[in-house]
């Protein structure tokens, strides 16, 4: 779609330092706007029919077993409620480490995603298990706060040990065309994510596609976030309907694919919200493989922001292991 502009494609590693503006388009407001509006438009009918076509693939037996384990290992187990307690976060962390205590072959989830004030609790509960702690920040979910408050929010979570920061973009600024402001915020948050001596917190940028109105905007916001140095682009907060949809994720996968072609830098994608069934999750995995490529079929490059999805995946795993249908009495209540 986009001609390669710089280096030939090479798979970046998760720890690679994100250069801001690798395409050299953010020099002035005008050049940024020219670049974003110069992106090819998204064919709405085409992308929706492509997504619907990919959703009809039938994944069975060994391929399904592989997909189930992969999907479990990609789950960002999320709890973002006002009623969250340390106890709930500890329970969720235990579940993330051993999603199915009856089955030692079940992989761990990728991360636990919580509000900033519970990062320390989650960090302590997860210990050295390898499961990451992700924290939403920047006045999640609306993002309606002054920049210094947002940065303090991020700094807090980083100081408490968050491995990943899920920030929201300023949709209001994006929709009025103030791309510079959105970009500057991402860059500023990115700087706060840095830790002396490496181990920077990874930055996931939430586009909140449900508020962006068009696929063209989704594509622009994706490129804007990647230009700002995002490690991941994430569809939604889960607090706005519609949350993640397959066509929106497809557009974002195209963006990360084209971005790697253009810059050699690999960016992850995280659909979040509304993915509740194994069937849905497998549709996403098929789309990842077909659109971005098998390189993205890895928890370092693709995540599901979900909570109830994990239980459905576990029920399906139990069904494949035992040969009979399992029931909700055999997974935890979250």
């Amino acid at each position, binding site marked *: 779609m986009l001609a390669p502009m710089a280096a030939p494609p090479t798979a970046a590693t998760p720890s690679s330092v994100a250069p801001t503006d690798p395409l050299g388009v953010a020099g002035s407001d005008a050049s940024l706007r020219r670049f974003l509006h110069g992106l090819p438009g998204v064919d709405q009918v085409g992308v929706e029919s492509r997504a619907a076509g990919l959703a009809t693939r039938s994944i069975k037996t060994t391929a399904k077993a592989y997909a189930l384990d992969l999907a479990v290992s990609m789950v960002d187990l999320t709890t973002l409620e006002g009623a969250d307690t340390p106890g709930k976060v500890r329970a969720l962390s235990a579940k993330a480490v051993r999603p199915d205590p009856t089955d030692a072959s079940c992989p761990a989830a990728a991360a636990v995603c919580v509000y900033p004030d519970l990062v320390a609790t989650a960090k302590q509960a997860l210990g050295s298990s390898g499961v990451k702690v992700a924290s939403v920040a920047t006045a999640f979910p609306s993002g309606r706060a002054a920049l210094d408050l947002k940065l303090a929010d991020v700094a807090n979570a980083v100081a408490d040990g968050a491995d990943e920061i899920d920030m929201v973009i300023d949709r209001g600024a994006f929709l009025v065309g103030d791309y510079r402001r959105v970009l500057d915020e991402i860059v500023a948050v990115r700087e706060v994510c840095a830790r002396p001596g490496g181990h920077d917190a990874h930055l996931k940028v939430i586009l909140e596609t449900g508020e962006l109105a068009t696929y063209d905007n989704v594509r622009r916001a994706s490129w804007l976030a990647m230009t700002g140095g995002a490690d991941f682009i994430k569809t939604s907060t889960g607090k706005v309907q519609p949350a993640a949809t397959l066509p929106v994720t497809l557009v974002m996968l195209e963006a990360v694919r084209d971005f790697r072609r253009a810059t050699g830098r690999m960016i992850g994608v995280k659909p979040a919200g509304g993915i509740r069934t194994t069937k849905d999750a497998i549709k996403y995995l098929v789309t990842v493989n077909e659109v971005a490529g098998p390189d993205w079929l890895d928890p370092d490059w693709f995540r599901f922001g979900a909570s109830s999805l994990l239980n459905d995946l576990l029920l399906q795993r139990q069904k494949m292991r035992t040969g009979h249908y399992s*029931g909700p009495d055999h997974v935890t209540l979250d």
Partner: protein
Amino acid sequence: MSRDRTRRDADRIDVRKTYKLYVGGAFPRSESARSYEVTDARGGFLANASLASRKDGRDAVVAARKAFGSWSTRTPYNRGQVVYRIAEVLESRRDQLEREVREATGVNAGGARAEVDQAVDRLVWYAGWADKLAQVVGNANPVAGPYFNLSSPEPTGVVAVMAPASPLLGLVSVVAPVITTGNTCVVVASQPHPLPAITLAEVMATADLPGGVVNVLTGHQGEIAPWLASHLDVDGLDLTGVDDADLARDLEVAAADNLKRVRRPGPEDLAADPRLDRMTRFVETKTVWHPVGT
């Protein structure tokens, strides 16, 4: 069904009915997209019915589980009203059901009328029991201490029901007791005579019965039943309609895994006046201790 009409009005295109499954209050086709031919008593073609797969069984269990919470917590009195309402709506569609019973089994008009009469009466009979069973099988137990000790029947949960061959009376006789006590169910209808079962589903769908309380699958018993028997989210299994002794034994073995309540098949005259055992088989006795007030 449409013979008279087509003779009368040869130019008009037949509007044939698609007989589908009844799951969660909706009438979906089988997820497998399969169907099978249903014939009348003389072997003539009647209709195509959906041939349900194990996945339809799984979906039906999910629907039944979802409906269980609100159905089981309704007052027994209200459940009785709903079951009575099924009888009312069934009565208003008796012409259609009589015709379907006649076509399916080959009985004469009088026999079909008698079967529908009995089916309606049976629903009324069970409706009356809804708020009286607890008085009969529950108890205030005498205990040595300053406590009330009360036992009362509670619904078991989701019950998988294998309906007997008798297309209408048999079906009503196995479904009504299960739902009257507050359970929800997944019914595998009689394989040779599924059409009255789907018509009964249409009756239930318009009789204030919440979606998912009764789910009707049509197809091969031997294909669906083992999946329901081994399903860990099914709490009870009624084997009334299983004539094959080997299959019945296998189903009982599969049901043991999560300690399902099982009702074994046995010689039974469904036309005779029912007893309480069909209701009491799928209830649990809950006993509570409560201090006597001062």
